[in-house]
């Protein structure tokens, strides 16, 4: 099993946001988490990646049977956890190419591979650029600075292609993309999914799931996973919205 989340409770500034999340993901699986804004989807992704603003009050996260919560975010990344950001951060003055090289070498070092020098890395990055059909001029610019929404998302998938993660969590990677860009990004994600890796897609909408078929769909509401099903669950949400979940959530809260 690649990811095993058990009874996870998380606070942000003393407010409980996640209230007992359970999730298991095996190698070779693609999972999708859907839900309204504020349901806790993005919080879950950031907690897995180790954002310091979130406080885990109880529960556990195991990654390849290793306790993820006890290690720093950089070590999680080196071990193979990747988070594609909903809003990739702009970092003025830091060259995108250099950033990608440093990040790639951190992961390579962890895997016992030799670090790549500037020239070797350029060869690798040029090859991986094809996966996201990204213009090489974006490598010369500062990290995400002045990139359009779509370019930022392609840059995220480029990072994923370079880091070759075991677990890729893509937080609303489809938001802000036109249909062509969505197809390019989705095809990149599909190419990078391997039998020994796992993918967790976080999304509002069915349209990403039309491009990437998930094995499991989870619906989050009020900081919990309320329902788990197959692709048909996403279709149902697309047709009937999220209102029907409210009743189920009320019942759960009454039970607790």
């Amino acid at each position, binding site marked *: 099993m690649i990811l095993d989340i058990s009874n996870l409770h998380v606070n942000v500034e003393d407010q409980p946001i996640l209230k007992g999340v359970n999730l298991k993901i095996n190698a070779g699986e693609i999972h999708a988490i859907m839900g309204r804004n504020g349901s806790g989807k993005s919080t879950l992704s950031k907690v897995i990646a180790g*954002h*310091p603003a979130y406080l885990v009050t109880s529960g556990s996260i195991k990654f390849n049977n290793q306790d993820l919560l006890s290690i720093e975010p950089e070590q999680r990344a080196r071990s193979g956890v990747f988070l594609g950001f909903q809003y990739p951060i702009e970092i003025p*003055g830091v060259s995108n190419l250099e950033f990608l090289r*440093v*990040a790639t070498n951190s992961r390579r070092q*962890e895997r016992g591979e030799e670090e790549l020098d500037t020239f070797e890395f350029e060869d690798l990055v040029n090859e991986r650029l094809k996966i996201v059909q990204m213009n090489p001029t974006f490598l010369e610019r500062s990290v995400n600075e002045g990139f359009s929404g779509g370019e930022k998302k392609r840059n995220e998938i480029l990072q994923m292609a370079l*880091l070759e993660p075991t677990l890729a969590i893509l937080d609303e990677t489809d938001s802000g993309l036109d249909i062509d860009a969505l197809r390019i990004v989705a095809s990149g994600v599909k190419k990078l999914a391997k039998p020994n890796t796992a993918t967790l897609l976080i999304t509002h909408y069915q349209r990403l799931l039309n491009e990437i078929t998930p094995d499991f769909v989870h619906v989050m509401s009020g900081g919990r996973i309320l329902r788990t099903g197959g692709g048909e669950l996403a279709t149902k949400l697309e047709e009937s919205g999220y209102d029907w979940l409210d009743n189920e959530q009320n019942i759960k809260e009454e039970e607790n």
Partner: protein
Amino acid sequence: MALCRQWLEALPRPEGVLEKIQRQGRKSLFYSGLPSSKIESWRLTDLKRLENLLKLSLSQETQNISQSNFFNLDKAANQGCRLILDPQLNLNESINLPSGFQKLNTTEIQQYLGRALNHFSSPNDWALAVNQASTNQILAFRVQGQDLPPLELIIPSQKDTLTPTRVIIILEEKVKLKLLQVALGAENSAQSHVLEIHLNKEAELDHGFVALGGGQASCLAHLAVAQEISSKYSLTAVQHGWMFSRLEPRIIQLNGQGSTNLKGLQISTGKQQLATHSLVRFEGPDGCLNQLQKAIANKSSHSIFNGLIEVPKIAQNTNASQLSRNLLLSRHARIDTKPELEIVADDVRCSHGATVSKLQEDELFYLRSRGIASSQATSLLLQGYCQEIIKDLPIEAQKWDILNTLIENINE
């Protein structure tokens, strides 16, 4: 007052081409003594550090420490011309200038000495008075022609010594020059540097001023720039590593239509105190100014910026912007920033702003989530922050590896 007078008594008799300004500086210091914290421009200064400066010798016989152990100065200047202001030599005689550069004769020196400074004369220019009182060397030259080599001007420091240096540069009409100045400090040394620049009509000067200190070293630098019509002046200034440093750029656009770009970066750590006190005055219409001042303060250091812009009635249609952006890396560090606009003209566009913040947690997390260690992520973010200024230094600055020097020492 007593310390100042004692220092004055130890100076040699006024003489030579600089005799007049030596007398002026001494008279000013004799009556004013050390600056008082009641004077606004000195209010935030640790005045004890000025006392330390006056306790240093003015001897010309000690060795240049920074030349041997601060940086490897043997590296040749790229395609340019490197001049070293060695106070043990007679600068105006010993330095050979390339074609297009012509030394001023004694009469011309007398004519230009203080001319740019006089536009700004202020009784509180203590840093200027110290230089006037003690300097006995001057390098003065005019520049004309085209395709001039970039000029690198290095100011070494001397052990336990206050080194005064004085330079006058005149750019004739339409001349374009790149000038990189590097002021070095180490151990217990001090620099007192005054530079006067005259930019004639349509002249362009791309000026880097990099002050790299170390140890207990101090630096006082006063730059006076007079811009004629349609001239362009770009200053990129970096201060780092000094226990005490104070940079005073003074720029005047004499008849309008000038363009001034000022970029400044000061990086302080330990107990250092670094300051920039800039003044830009528009004496004609249609002038423009872009100013960006940045600071990073770590440990218990103190960073100060005072930026005054004067737009009198004659300076209609002035377009000026000033921005001060600062990073506090420690809760014990302190940053004081004060933009000041004096606008009398009514048809102008002037803007200013100031921010003080910490490193952004989200930026750090983004880098860490890609496997980059916290310390390396911090270093990358700081490099990015500095790069916005450093990239505008003249190309000659590349071999000094300034960015790495700044970041390596920030935690000391």
